[in-house]
């Protein structure tokens, strides 16, 4: 190997190392902190020094945190199921049937996904109160549709368009109804795309903060992001950083695992949602 090539390789792998370290270090440090207690918390460590699970024990034994995790799982799951159900039929219509106003409709749906959440906050607050949903998890299931629905419709439409026309022609000639075509032909073909979109929508719903902060008012109803944001001490010096980091690790770990398993799917779903526009 010549010297410049050798140098180039080293430089490249140094860059790769920097990229990996900056991406992983904050989470690594959160795990490290979550395993420290008492005085150990206030000494800066770069490598694990102690292994103490008391932060996790105190988080999980307090009861409310467990309930909050259940809340988050419930809201994200129900939101994803409803949006996928509404989106699959809608995107069939948008991808496979030609009708006037289709382009305009897609444009409208796309622009809804760009809505700043704060712009609908006052109106949604009024609606939520009018339906008696204030401090109910259903207020979140409803309001999260504003970002999961345009996203799932958009991505599923792109995926469905990519399928060849021939696959449904035979079914149309046999006189199958559109609903049968969706159920028998598209759902089986599209389930990988649905898993991807569902996963991305799940992550969005799991991470949402503004609506959850506004529409829920009691500790037992809150979702985890709000719970973590609101953990504080009586003074600046009593903030329980160990507990905060333990809670953070608990809510993040499932997502990290999902990312590792579904990496390729997530990448294809994210880019389908944006680049192909």
């Amino acid at each position, binding site marked *: 190997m010549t010297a410049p090539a050798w140098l180039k390789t080293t430089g490249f792998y140094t860059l790769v190392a920097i990229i990996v370290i900056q991406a992983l270090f904050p989470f690594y440090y959160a795990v490290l902190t979550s395993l420290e207690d008492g005085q150990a918390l206030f000494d800066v460590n770069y490598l694990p020094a102690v292994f103490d699970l008391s932060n996790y024990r105190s988080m999980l034994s307090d009861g409310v945190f467990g309930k909050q995790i259940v809340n988050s799982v419930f809201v994200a799951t129900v939101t994803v199921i409803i949006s996928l159900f509404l989106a699959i039929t809608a995107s069939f219509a948008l991808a496979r049937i030609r009708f006037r106003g289709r382009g305009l409709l897609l444009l409208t749906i796309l622009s809804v996904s760009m809505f*700043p959440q704060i*712009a*609908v906050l006052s109106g949604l607050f009024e609606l939520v109160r009018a339906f008696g949903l204030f401090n109910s998890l259903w207020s979140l299931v409803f309001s999260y549709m504003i970002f999961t629905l345009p996203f799932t419709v958009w991505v599923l439409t792109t995926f469905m368009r990519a399928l060849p026309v021939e696959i449904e022609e035979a079914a149309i000639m046999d006189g199958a109804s559109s609903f049968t075509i969706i159920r028998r032909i598209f759902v089986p073909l599209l389930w990988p795309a649905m898993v991807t979109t569902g996963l991305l929508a799940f992550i969005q719903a799991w991470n949402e903060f503004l609506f959850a902060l506004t529409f829920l008012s009691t500790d037992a109803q809150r979702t985890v992001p709000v719970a*973590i944001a609101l953990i504080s001490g009586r003074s600046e010096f009593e903030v329980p950083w160990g507990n905060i980091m333990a809670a953070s690790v608990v809510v993040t770990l499932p997502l990290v695992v999902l990312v590792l398993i579904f990496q390729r799917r997530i990448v294809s779903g994210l880019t389908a949602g*944006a680049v192909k526009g």
Partner: protein
Amino acid sequence: MSAAPDISPATARASARTSRLSRERIRSAWLFLAPMLIVLAGVALYPLYRTIWFSFTDASLDLLGEARFIGWRNYLEYVDYGNGDGEWFGLLADSRWWRSVWNTVWFAIVSVSLETLFGLVIALVLHKKFPGRVWVQAAVLIPWAIPTIVSARMWAWMLHDQFGIVNDMLQRIGLIDAPVAWTASPETAMIAVIMVDVWKTTPFMALLILAGLQMVPRDMYEAARLDGVPPFRLFRRVTLPLIMPALLVAIVFRALDALRVFDIVYVMTPNTDATRTMSVYARENLFDFDRFAYGSAASTLLFFIIALITIGFIYATRMNLEGDER
């Protein structure tokens, strides 16, 4: 076209059947779209309309039902004190509002520029083939998957003035002499917020740019390599123009996202003039200061700013939404 004279009865019947079929299909299209459209109207259009309406009223948090129309007074109003003296009131005369507009714009410009730059570097690295590439890509994705709130708190801890590891690192390599109160002092609060946002959203940018890179045909590089074009020239003359459309879409998506930033600021630097953004300002007025109508006015303005940018973008790029005739 179906009524051509020399058409045989059989074909005529067949084409009548097709057009009936296609009419049925169009009807079913609207039927399929209806539930989705109703939900979207209920969750987006109606609330938006109400927000705009509230911005022209004197609504307060507990008396939404008794809101009265007061015109533009939440936006701008001149109060005459009677002695030839007077003062301007309302959102457009509120220096705190303009400060948060400026904060938001500044935040969006700096963070999106940095994200584009770093995203480009990471995408170029991931575009190369090397052992372990898949694992590097997985690692890059992790900041994106971590909830914003969690990243904000993780970084707040790392940036802690007394026990934070960032101060420790910087002191060890001699970049700073004394610990910096990153989130607390007005000079550095915005830097801290931007740092977290860049860390969290660069992966998204990198992925979108990478997708653009992968659409560039390989033989293009092959030809350039055979002609002996230096790598930087190749990047500037071939790669960059070809990925420009993908890059632009990514930048606009991120910019629209950055203009509505709320979570990071709310959690990391609460109640600071130095970082208050438009969204934070609006929510503060809506729910903390009991100035519901005034907060709605701020939300409305934010909406129109973002809408203008979006429309401009769609018009400028003439997005092909029909998805056919490519």
